[in-house]
């Protein structure tokens, strides 16, 4: 296999040189087949959606802190009809679209689409993806989804407002949700396109990682990022068809009144709704069969990236490489049999709930193993506190909180109380913001030099980290406390309940922190944009890292490598006694006459 890769590469190199001059702007930057351009396209698109999703969240926070009060600046323009206030319909739309955008248009595509695309060929020593055209399509199939989402904001009734989980019958029966008419249909079609895009990416990533590795790059010499991307791709491939089927069924329910999810005898708004014959719980099973593995799709690649950053900036080999790989595989495997823990209170057979509880408890184990190994990696190293390292360390710190709080809701009796409260909101944000988003920020600071050939500003990177970290914890940590108070999710005004009236002060504090966290991202945006054009130019390997992408020029040209990389060892040989320098690139040949010691087993 290695010889064919070599041959293909040599061929492509020649091809690339001939190609470089003739390619027009459209082929180079828009409909590009180059994995790096596609990755950066994904990165820009998802970062823009990140802004949209973030602003929606801030609007939610405004309402929760000062319900029914005029929203400053934008209120008068947006809600003229309500005298500048958020209406309850609009509020349900806000949190629905915040979650939908963040999950399906930011986190999943930024990890798999942006980092997966950019890093996989570079880190395995390939000149491009196995299927470049499919790769390009995987990006351009996001655009119908983008357009559906944008249109949905402007259709009568507004965008989807049935929660990001889209539970029927609320989502399936028009008259049930005056705030979500055709918006919900656009939402469903948008998600189908995201699914198609993900599936194209997934097939491509699996094939590329299996078939296109450079000579010497065995599976157990792959960086953790690639392992995580590989297992994520497998998860996508097996779980996505189920979601796609469910989405189509709900579209049919809405458009043709098929009644897959709508039971008989429904009386909505004093009118009967459709012929019935369906089951609302069916949707929940199908939806979570995908969307629980999707939680791992949203965290595993970040775990991989963080492992690479931590090892690099601890200047020390990753602790327990193989246990790390096996625990990712363990998470993926168990990930398929825990979806029912979203449904403990749903009316599902409680005995079934108990079996899901046991599997859910056990999935905490591989996460614990990973955490211990990250701690083992920084133990006894020489830590360099760069911006990516700070984000990577904070990933570990925040993931510990998100992981531990998961045990509360896995415990079914406790879930009776905290289900659908802010405890859950705290948990998911510790995992997906404190975890994934911090991992992504770290990843951007880390691989930015490879993407654009320039460095981001370290000082402002640290300032960005500091404020994000402080305000993130100010925002989400207290949600555990109000969640313990029973404070429910998705209520436009919870304070008219006596039980929750005293929590408004805490919510105002949370909202102020959330606005601070939003403002801190301006630092990042400025640093990012400025550095693309004006950042100091860097060499191939500014961080003195080992893995193959640093062997390529910054930024790599078409075809990636100017010399065929040959891999001699794993990517984590920092501080190896074999060499003088504190890093030992995968491509560096062993010293003359050096005989590798036999592994001690």
């Amino acid at each position, binding site marked *: 296999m290695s010889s064919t890769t070599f041959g293909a590469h040599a061929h492509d190199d020649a091809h690339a040189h001939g190609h470089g001059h003739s390619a027009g702007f459209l082929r180079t930057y828009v409909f590009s087949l180059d994995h790096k351009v596609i990755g950066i396209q994904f990165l820009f698109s998802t970062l823009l959606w990140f802004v949209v999703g973030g602003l929606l969240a801030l609007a939610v926070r405004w309402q929760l802190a000062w319900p029914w009060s005029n929203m400053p600046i934008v209120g008068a323009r947006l809600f003229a009809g309500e005298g500048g206030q958020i209406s309850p319909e609009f509020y349900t739309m806000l949190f629905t679209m915040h979650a939908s955008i963040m999950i399906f248009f930011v986190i999943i595509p930024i990890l798999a689409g942006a980092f997966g695309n950019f890093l996989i060929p570079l880190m395995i020593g390939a000149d491009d993806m196995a299927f470049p055209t499919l790769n390009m399509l995987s990006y351009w199939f996001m655009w119908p989804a983008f357009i559906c989402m944008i249109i949905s904001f402007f259709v009568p009734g507004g965008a989807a407002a049935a929660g990001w989980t889209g539970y029927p019958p609320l989502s399936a029966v028009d008259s049930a949700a005056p705030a979500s008419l055709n918006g919900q249909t656009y939402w469903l079609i948008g998600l189908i396109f995201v699914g198609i895009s993900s599936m194209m990416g997934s097939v491509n990533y699996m094939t590329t990682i299996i078939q296109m590795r450079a000579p010497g790059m065995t599976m157990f010499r792959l960086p953790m990022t690639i392992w995580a991307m590989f297992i994520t791709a497998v998860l996508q491939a097996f779980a996505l068809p189920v979601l796609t089927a469910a989405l189509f069924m709900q579209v049919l329910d809405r458009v043709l009144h098929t009644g897959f999810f709508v039971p008989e005898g429904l009386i*909505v708004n004093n009118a009967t709704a459709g012929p019935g014959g369906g089951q609302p719980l069916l949707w929940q099973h199908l939806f979570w069969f995908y969307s629980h593995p999707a939680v791992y799709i949203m965290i595993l690649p970040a775990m991989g990236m963080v492992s690479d950053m931590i090892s690099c900036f601890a200047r020390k080999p990753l*602790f327990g490489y193989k246990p790390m790989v096996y625990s990712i595989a363990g998470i993926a495997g168990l990930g398929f049999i825990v979806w029912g823990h979203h449904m403990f209170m749903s009316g599902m057979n409680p005995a079934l709930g108990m079996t899901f509880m046991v599997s859910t408890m056990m999935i905490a184990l591989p996460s614990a193993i990973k955490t211990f190994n990250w701690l083992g990696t920084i133990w006894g*190293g020489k830590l360099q506190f760069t911006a990516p390292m700070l984000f990577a360390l904070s990933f570990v710190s925040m993931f510990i909180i998100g992981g531990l709080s998961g045990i509360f809701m896995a415990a079914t009796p406790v879930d*009776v109380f905290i289900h659908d409260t802010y405890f859950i909101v705290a948990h998911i944000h510790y995992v997906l913001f404190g975890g994934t988003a911090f991992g992504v920020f770290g990843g951007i600071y880390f691989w930015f030099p490879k993407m654009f050939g320039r460095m981001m500003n370290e000082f402002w990177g640290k300032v960005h980290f500091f404020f994000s970290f402080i305000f993130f914890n100010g925002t989400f940590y207290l949600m555990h406390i109000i969640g313990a108070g029973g404070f429910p999710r998705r209520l436009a005004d919870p304070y008219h309940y006596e039980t929750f009236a005293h929590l408004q002060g805490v919510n105002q504090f949370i909202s102020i922190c959330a606005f601070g966290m939003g403002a801190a991202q301006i630092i990042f945006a400025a640093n990012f944009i400025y550095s693309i054009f004006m950042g100091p130019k860097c060499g191939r390997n500014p961080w003195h890292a080992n893995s193959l992408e640093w062997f390529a020029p910054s930024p790599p040209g078409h075809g990636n490598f100017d010399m065929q990389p040959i891999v001699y060892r794993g990517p984590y040989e920092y501080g190896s006694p074999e060499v003088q320098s504190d890093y030992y690139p995968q491509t560096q040949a062993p010293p003359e006459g050096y005989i590798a010691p036999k592994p001690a087993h």
Partner: protein
Amino acid sequence: MGKFWSILFLMVPVLGIALFFWAPSAGYWLPRDNSVHGYQIDHLFNFILVLTGVVFAATEGALFWFVWRYDAATNRDPIKFTHGSHNLEVIWTILPAATLLFIAIYQMNAWADVKMRVPKNLPPTVEVTARQFEWRLRYPGPDGKLGTMDDIHHVNDMHLPAGEEVLIELKSMDVLHDLFLPHLRVKQDAVPGMSIPVWFRAKDVGTFDLVCAELCGWGHYKMKGRATIQSRAEYDKWLEEMAVAQAATQEPEKEEE
């Protein structure tokens, strides 16, 4: 700067744990438990809180210490060149696995009590039918049977007797709702097409919030009810008054549904 960043990471466990000590005393905690089964849930919550608290302190503490101790700017020792430790991996696989398995088994009984052991031979106290955006209640009338002409209908104000096992038949007319009684440690989705039993025993008399905890549309936030827990005598009196009032206002007409 290494010291600065390590202090920042140290703040996570220090403030994090301090907050959990402060919150209950400041009144931010689980609402008072007024149910007989609730102590099991609260106990389990506290048990997991202590357990995860210890793990939290240990792992975040280790993170702080390693960041403090192994700062490249101050650490003069060579790095510990190791690829891992088989023994450590075994230890930190088996210990958490055993702990998690213990928690899993430890809670099974409480779960069975609140969701699986449906009281036998107990007639439903009240049938609750959720709809956008109210709770419709139906009590058996003087004949003691649900689904007859003399059923007592009421909305949002759920009267229940204290100290006895009550059984609610939970239904929904339109979309998903969720019957959430924070003080009674009760939560159950109402699903159209299903009739789900919910049972509990309230301790003291009083009035408690009834919250809809499953998104049910734009008016979800205002789907507010209350549970009025009364002594048996007062409860019977209320039922009687309701029956009389209803009979007086109602012409004999076709039964609803």
